[in-house]
Structure formats: C-alpha cells, structure tokens
C-alpha cells in the first residue's frame, strides 16, 4: 500500500547550493510522509484489526476442524465446505434464505414506495405517518418479535381470532411448515418498510417540481403517466440503494428466527445466519460455522457486485 503525498515541484537549484537544497527537500518529503501516515494510520489500524484480520481469521478457521474452546486443531482443507454443501440442513437453510429474500425485497420496496407516495401526496399528518411507519425499524426486533408471538398464537392470537370471526380459515402460523416462512417474511417487510419509506420520501423531495410541470404541459398529467415519466425514473438511484440495503438486511435475518421459531418446524424456517450461529455457538463447531460464514460472505459480496453493476447501467444519475 502506498500513500500519495503531494510534493512541491523541485526548485531549480544552482550548483553552489544544490546539496543543501536537496537535503532540505528530502527533509520536507520525510515530514510529509510522516504526516500522511500519522493521519491515515489510526483509520488503517482500525480497518485492519476490525475488518481484514477477522475476515482472514474466518477464512483460516474454515480450513480447520477447530472446535470452540478446543486446544488443538487440524488442517482439513476444503473438508468443511464439502460437508456444508452435502448437508441437507444447510441446503434447506440456503433455499429458505433465498425464498425469504425474494419475498421481503420486492414486498418492502413496493410497499415502501406506495406508502411514501401516499404520504407525499397527502397534506395533513405527514410527520405522524412517517413516524408510525418508521417505528418498527427503530425498535429492537427481538422485542417486536415477542409482540408478534401472541398476535400469531394459534388459539388466542388476534390474527386467528379475527380470521375466525370473519369465517376465514385459521392456521398455526409459526408451527406450520407451509406458513412459517411467509409469516417471517411479512414480519421482515413490516420491519424494513419504514426504512425504505424514509429513503423514498427523501428521494421524492429531491425531484424538481419543474419536471412535473413539464410533464403536465407535455400531457403526462394522469397519476400513472406522471409516475412512469418522472417519479419512478427519478427515484432510480434511491431505489438501487434501498434494493441493496434491504436485500442485505434480509440475508442477515436472525432475530425473528431465533426468538419466534428456532428454525423450526423441522428446517422450515432455518436461515443462513441462524445456521451459522447454531453451528458455531451452540454446537461449537467453529470450523464448520466459519465455512458457512465464508459462503454467506461470498453470497453477500457477489450480490452487491451484481446489483451495483446491473443497476448502475440502467439507473440514471444526475
């Protein structure tokens, strides 16, 4: 790694004082280098110790059979990875995570956008609506998950009571293999909605009124035409950001699984981070857990790169 330092152009030194001039110049350069390293140093140390070293450690542990607390370990090469991909539980966890993300991301983005548009088009109580939609994002999900549990209780839960009173079929939402993942996804949408909404609101505020005026004059004055001509394209950059952040948050879902379902019934609601946690910290299979972490990391990095690449080309930036 090299640090760029700016140096003044060398003065045209005459032959008599060239030696002294060079010395002064060298001293100046040294001082600049020291300043540069001392300024960049703290951040660099933090980055290395808190980010690069742990990542490197995870990669290294993934190649061993180390168990947490064990005094010895052996190098097993890609053995952990082979085991990970052969493991039915992990495969179910991966598929669950993908399904979960595939529901949460479009759900959050479309609902967040609709709510942002509704709030923006209304005149009264804007701050109130903003606040109540943003609340779930601010609150600790563990606490919120506890609140969801009685709601979804099979006999005394409000959801089933309401459905029953309307004559609709009820379900044991969190204990049924068919419903548990969609229910977790709904909770995920509920939680991320406010975040997407706030970002969309900020995006909507930054669209120049002139564009809407031009659209009016050009004849694109119905809500659908305005949305297609101005609003959605101008929200492109914000949408990309929301897409990436919500997708990453969905991939990292852990609290709801831990508090509400423990991955069950069976493996029906097990997701990557929960698998990782269970293998590493409950079963203490740290090597195996590290391999899961590496897979998880690869998915997240790949996703970010693909999203940035694909969306960057199609999204307009001013």
């Amino acid at each position, binding site marked *: 790694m090299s640090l760029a330092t700016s140096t003044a152009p060398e003065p045209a030194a005459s032959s008599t004082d060239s030696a002294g001039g060079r010395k002064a110049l060298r001293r100046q350069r040294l001082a600049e280098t020291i300043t540069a390293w001392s300024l960049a140093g703290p951040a660099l140390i933090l980055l290395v110790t808190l980010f690069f070293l742990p990542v490197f450690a995870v990669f290294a542990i993934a190649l061993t059979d180390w168990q947490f607390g064990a005094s010895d370990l052996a190098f097993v090469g890609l053995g952990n990875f082979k085991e990970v991909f052969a493991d039915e539980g992990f495969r179910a966890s991966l598929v669950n995570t993908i399904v979960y993300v595939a529901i949460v991301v479009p759900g959050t983005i479309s609902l967040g956008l609709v709510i942002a548009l509704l709030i923006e088009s209304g005149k009264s109580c804007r701050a109130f609506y903003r606040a109540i939609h943003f609340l779930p994002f601010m609150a600790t999900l563990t606490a919120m998950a506890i609140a969801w549990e009685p709601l979804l209780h099979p006999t005394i839960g409000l959801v089933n009571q309401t459905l029953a009173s309307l004559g609709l079929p009820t379900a044991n939402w969190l204990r049924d293999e068919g419903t548990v993942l969609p229910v977790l996804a709904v909770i995920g949408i509920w939680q991320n909605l406010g975040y997407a909404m706030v970002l969309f609101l900020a995006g909507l505020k930054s669209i*120049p009124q*002139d*564009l809407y*005026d*031009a659209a*009016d*004059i*050009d*004849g*694109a*004055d*119905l809500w*659908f*035409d305005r949305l297609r*001509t*101005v609003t959605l*394209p*101008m929200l*492109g950059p914000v949408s990309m950001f929301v897409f990436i952040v919500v997708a990453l948050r969905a991939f990292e879902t852990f609290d709801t699984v831990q508090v509400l379902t423990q991955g069950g019934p069976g493996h029906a609601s097990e997701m990557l981070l929960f698998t990782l946690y269970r293998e590493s910290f409950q079963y203490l299979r740290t090597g195996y857990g590290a391999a899961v972490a590496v897979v998880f990391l690869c998915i997240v990095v790949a996703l970010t790169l693909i999203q940035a690449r694909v969306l960057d080309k199609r999204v*307009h930036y*001013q």
Partner: protein
Amino acid sequence: MNKIFIKQISKSFGATPVLRDVSLSIADGEFLTLLGASGCGKSTLLRILAGLELQTGGSVAIGERVVDGVRPKRRDVAMVFQSYALYPHMTVQDNMALPLRMRRLSSWQRLPLAGRFMPGTTATTAEIERDVTRTAKALGIGHLLARKPGQLSGGQRQRVAVGRAMVRQPAVFLMDEPLSNLDAMLRVQMRAEIKELHNRLGVTFVYVTHDESEAMTMSDRVAVMLDGELLQVAPPQEIYADPDDRRVAEFIGSPKINMLEARLRDGGLADAAGTSFAVAANVAHGTALTLGIRPEAFHLVDAGGANILTGAVRLVEHMGSDLFVHLDVPGTEHPLIARLLAERAPQILTGQTLHLGVKPERLLLFAADGKRLRPHNHRNGTVLRMRELAQ
C-alpha cells in the same frame, strides 16, 4: 386566431398577494415579454397562462376559449423552462417525442411492451419519429437525438427544450427565462435564434425575463411588471423613450436614468439642482415634480444657464464609442451620469467643471406618486394601442 386575453388576474399565496388585477391582451403572433425584477410575479402570470397555477381571481382566454380550470395539456400551449426541465433519463429523441406520444397514442398504446401490439401503434410511432427528426434538424440538433441531457452542453439542452415545445406545433409558446442559465456569448446568439424562430413560426410567444436587453431586442411589446402590478405595456422603444411611470423609467435603461427632485414655480419653470428648467406640465404651481433625464439626453455646452446643469467631473468611463461621465452637481443626492459620444466630446478630466444642457422636450416629468406628467397635447400611445388590440 390565438389572441390571449388576461382579464383582471389576481393571485395570492396565502396572505401574500403576488398579482394584483393584471389585465393584458396579446395579439395573435405577437412576441410579448413580461419584464420585471425577480419576485414581481411575472413567472406566476406565465404559469397561470400555462395552467400550472390557478389564479385567485380573474380570467384567461386563449383564442376564443376561456381556459380557466382547463388542464395544461388541453390549452395548446408549450413551455420552455428556465431549468429546461428535460427528463434526464430519456434520450433527446424520447424527450422530444413525449408530448406527441401523450397526444397521439392512447394509454393502451403507450403500455410498455403490450402497447407495441396494439393496432396503429407502429404507424403512429413512425410518424412521431419523423416529426421529431424534422424538428431536431430544423434546430440543428439532429445529431444529438440518441444522447441524454446529461451529455449535452447548456446551449444544446436549451435547443432540446425549445424542440420539445416546438414539435407539437402549439398555438402559444411560453418561455420562462430560457436564457438565464447560459453564458453571455451564447445568450446573445440564442436571443437571435429565438427571435428568428418566432418569425418563422408566426405563433404567439410570451417570454418572461428580468433581463432588459432580452426584452428590448426580442419583443414586439414589453410588459413591465413590478410588485405584482403591470406598469406599462408598449413597444420597446416606447417603453424606453415614453415611460408611463417613474419605476418603468428607472428599470429600463443602462446607465440608469437621472432623477432630479424639482418644484414648479411661475412661468412653467421648475427649479432643480441649482438651475431652472422650462417644463410643460399641466399642474399647479408649487407642485413637487421629478425630472427624469436619460444619460444620452445631455449635450455639452460652454456656459451655465437655464436648462443647463453644472458640476465637477467625478469619473470618466470610456466605453469605446461612448463616454460615461459621472458629474457631481450641487443639490443632487447622487452623481449624474451623462452619455456623450466619444468623438464629439473633448478631452474630459476628473475634477473639471462641465456644463451639460438638456432640451426641454427630452425632460421626462413625473408627479410625486410616480405617474408620468405629459404636456397637454401629448397623446398616450400606449393606451391607444391597448385599445386597438382589445378591439
């Protein structure tokens, strides 16, 4: 016929009045400029014409039709915005095609994929493409059709904005300070191009600007606005030479008109700045007046006397063909500015005493309330012209 009648328009934003009882008629094919300092309500008036803003009171008619409450797209007006308001995600081609697509294609035909398979879409789209290409060529932007606004220079964007307005052949062009984002050189060039465009299309243009030179060079008539009021509507030369109001006289002209406070006494004489001027105003003796003297109304004379101002030269500015001489005259608040032809003026030095004469007919008299005082037989050209237009 596409005359525009603006009848007693008023507009308030909350408790703040922005337009007060503005009435104006604009002839078919006329180039009318709304001129005024920022915040005078000229853009609001234009937006009311476009239908983007609803007036608080009064009525607007375009052609024979009262358009109050009519949506902008049904008014047959096109607008060029100060920011150009081009859709940044669309190519120039799509930007210019949008007003045509919105009018010529049904909502079904405009649907993203399915629209292509609706009957008639292909033929109409091809026709739109032809119209866009023709307009783009006429404006010299044919080679830019595939680009996006972000890849264009200010001047090119401006042309695209004009193109988008032009492509659907509207009855009225509304322009809201379209040149103010351009550099000085380009502004002069585009000024001429817009004027040419007006000549070529022959439709009504309403142009909003705060730039006096744009108003004076391009317009058939200029409407000077101040604080939400229309002060005078007249051809540029008349606005300059025969202003109705002190504020109009002060707003138009660079350097600014010289204003001398005076009092009328016997014999049709007014005393100001230590000298007396022969004035022909039909007002009572002792009335306070303001004498307006354009800088170029001064001529050099050898000695002081009636209608002659005497003072010490404070500053001389050489402008090539002209000299701007700033003169400290006792009894005046500000130095007077005289514009003298460089070739006729002798060497003028700072500190030198100079005598400047004014012919009585070049004095502009204003009453204390700012209204112009005209000699008895002077007919008000503006009023006559307004009446002609209204008939």
